[in-house]
């Protein structure tokens, strides 16, 4: 489906924000840089729907804004029909705005409550002077009908409509200028399931009717799966995996994608699969983790090759290591940063907060077996925990970080093509797939 010349292509797209706004901050150099979008390549073909998935704060909204030219990229380029957006002049930019439209997450908030629906939908017609004034009312009625509303809705105000209807109005407004691309930012997140389904159906119908291309941004894979031809999964400003839904859901996938997928509640009370629950929130984009940015939460983080450790076990060791590093960096009591006293520690091994750390209790708290299968690893861990118990957090930290350094935290994984057979190229940026990729 991707032709030679995609409708919209992004190359090496980056967007950095700086947190400082005041003169003083700038003088003191206190500003911190947020890498909201960090080197993204992307393309959308004509008539295609690209799903963009990720958690809040992963940069997907920023990416959407960059693609429609609402924001200027810090680096990289966006090419629309072969034209680099950066080279466009004002008029062309204006034209582009009519070709690429945006539908926002919160339908009610994005509609001016003071205006009747007819004016809201008709506004872009007037601004871009698309339809002569005398024919505007007809066009507005057409548009409202297209999105499944009565033409009489034109005389009413947004607050008189339900969430789903407001989203229809927003879509009608976006369609008013006959765009080629619609960027839908979480268009159904705020809606009820039954309404959600109908909006999704509407979007598909519109695509079929007008040959629209969509960039469909959502955190819900089940929704994206439903509408997208291809899916890109984003984590902390980078795209970690992309491919067709089938490739993502039926073949191998990035551990992050797996986690997202697993998190969707199964509407089946008897389903008893294992759920992958990621710990914590998305890390801050101000100081993103090194290497593979997901390594701080990844359940399948790769153990150092020197040791023979299970993934889950190593995850526990990693968590301990990272928490300890935080504690040392903050200079506080390690007990405050560590899982201490161990949450949910109900058995006898749980120790009250005032007693000293014991290696066993810490291991329990981090889900590490009392004895590691790998002897060298066990020795190093024991040594570190003893140091910690003795109160030398710094020694414990350095011992741990020297011994248990994962390749995931040192090298940034490049996307590897794992499957080129289907209708899309399936690429994953994860060290686990390096072997396979090189094999191919």
């Amino acid at each position, binding site marked *: 489906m991707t032709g030679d010349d995609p409708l919209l292509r992004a190359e090496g797209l980056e967007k950095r924000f700086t*947190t*400082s*706004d*005041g*003169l*003083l901050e700038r003088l003191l150099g206190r500003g911190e840089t947020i890498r909201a979008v960090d080197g993204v390549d992307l393309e959308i073909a004509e008539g295609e729907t690209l799903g963009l998935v990720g958690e809040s704060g992963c940069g997907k909204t920023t990416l959407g804004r960059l693609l429609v030219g609402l924001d200027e990229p810090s680096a990289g380029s966006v090419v629309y029909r072969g034209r680099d957006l950066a080279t466009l002049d004002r008029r062309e930019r204006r034209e582009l705005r009519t070709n690429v439209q945006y539908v926002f997450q919160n339908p009610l908030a994005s509609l001016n409550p003071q205006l009747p629906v007819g004016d809201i939908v008709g506004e872009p017609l007037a601004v871009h002077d698309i339809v002569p004034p005398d024919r505007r009312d007809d066009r507005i009625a057409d548009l409202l009908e297209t999105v499944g509303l009565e033409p009489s809705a034109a005389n009413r105000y947004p607050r008189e409509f339900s969430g789903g209807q407001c989203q229809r109005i927003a879509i009608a407004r976006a369609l008013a200028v006959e765009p080629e691309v619609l960027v839908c930012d979480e268009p159904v997140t705020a809606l009820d399931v039954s309404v959600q389904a109908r909006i999704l159906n509407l979007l598909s119908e519109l695509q079929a009717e007008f040959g629209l291309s969509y960039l469909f941004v959502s955190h819900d894979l089940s929704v994206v799966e439903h509408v997208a031809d291809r899916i890109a999964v984003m984590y902390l400003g980078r795209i970690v995996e992309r491919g067709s839904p089938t490739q993502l859901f039926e073949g191998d996938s990035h551990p992050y994608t797996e986690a997202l997928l697993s998190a969707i509640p199964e509407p089946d009370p008897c389903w008893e699969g294992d759920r992958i629950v990621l710990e914590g929130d998305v890390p801050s984009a101000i100081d993103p983790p090194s290497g593979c940015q997901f390594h701080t939460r990844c359940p399948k983080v790769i153990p150092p090759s020197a040791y023979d450790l299970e993934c889950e076990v190593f995850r526990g060791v990693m968590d301990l290591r990272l928490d300890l590093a935080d504690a040392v960096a903050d200079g506080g009591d390690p007990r405050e940063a560590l899982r201490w006293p161990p949450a949910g520690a109900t058995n006898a091994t749980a120790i009250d907060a005032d007693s000293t750390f014991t290696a066993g209790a810490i291991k329990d708290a981090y889900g590490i077996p009392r004895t590691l299968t790998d002897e060298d690893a066990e020795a190093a861990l024991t040594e570190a925990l003893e140091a910690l118990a003795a109160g030398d957090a710094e020694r414990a930290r350095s011992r741990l970080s020297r011994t248990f350094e994962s390749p995931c935290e040192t090298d940034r994984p490049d996307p590897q093509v794992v499957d080129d057979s289907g209708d899309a190229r399936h690429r994953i940026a994860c060290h686990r797939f390096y072997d396979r990729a090189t094999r191919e």
Partner: protein
Amino acid sequence: MSIIRYTLRRALTAVPVLLGATAITFSFVYLTPGDPVDVLVGFDHVDPETRAALRAEYNLDRPLWQQYLLWLGDVVTFEFGESPITGRDVGETVASRLPHTVALGVASWTLSLAIGVPLGILAAIKQGQPADEASRIAALVGIATPNFWLGLVLLFVFAVHLGWVRVTPPDAPLVSLEMAWFVILPTVTLATALAAIVTRLMRSSMRRELDREYVRAARARGLRERTVILKHVLRNASTAVVTVAGLQIAFLVDGAVVVEHVFSWPGMGQLLVESIGRRDVSVVQASVLLIAVATVAANLLVDVAYAIIDPRIRHDR
């Protein structure tokens, strides 16, 4: 961001504001036609040499920017020099008037809050009930009553007919019981409109906050209604009032001109009006500078108070 750092940051931004304000008033005062020397000589046709000598005496012959810099230099050393009109030290003149205005301003500001805040809260809680309606009417009357008229009415009723207070200030120190007694009428006059504004504002922001989810959540947590209103709603609602209370400093200066006139109160308002009438540029500039400093300081206080009340301000970047 800590409160101290926040305060410092806000204070730094006040410096250019002050510079700008003084530069503007400085040029404004000079650009208005009529010159102190004209007033001095009473529009008489004096010997041109005398006129020139007088102008030189007060640097009026120099280019405007030089005058401004000279003046600025004086200001930072707190040397305002001598007024060409009165021959008195400008700093002393202003300093002798300032306490009166501060006393009146602080008193009426406090009174307006003391009346407006509880009344606003009451009206918000009793929405639609007689107490609310009464406060609405009272506020409307308060806003609509001109200070000048109210001041005179109070004067004739309480000073002339009832004889409870004096018409003119007593010969007593500013900080004395007699003076405090006298200040009641001007304070009430000046506070009335302010109190009315505060009442309406307090009411509307309380109403807005009362509809917020956290209020319902606080009730759901089993907090006493008193706690919900006074601890939660009031604190959130007070941000708007704090902002307006700060802006009212400027309003007070404006109102003081009229109220001081009616009550023969020797404050900054009268001084300013008088000095403008006499083209006493040096006094006008010093007064305006003082008012600007006061306004900026008040706004700084408002910002800091705001940040203390609402932690989001401190963190917003």
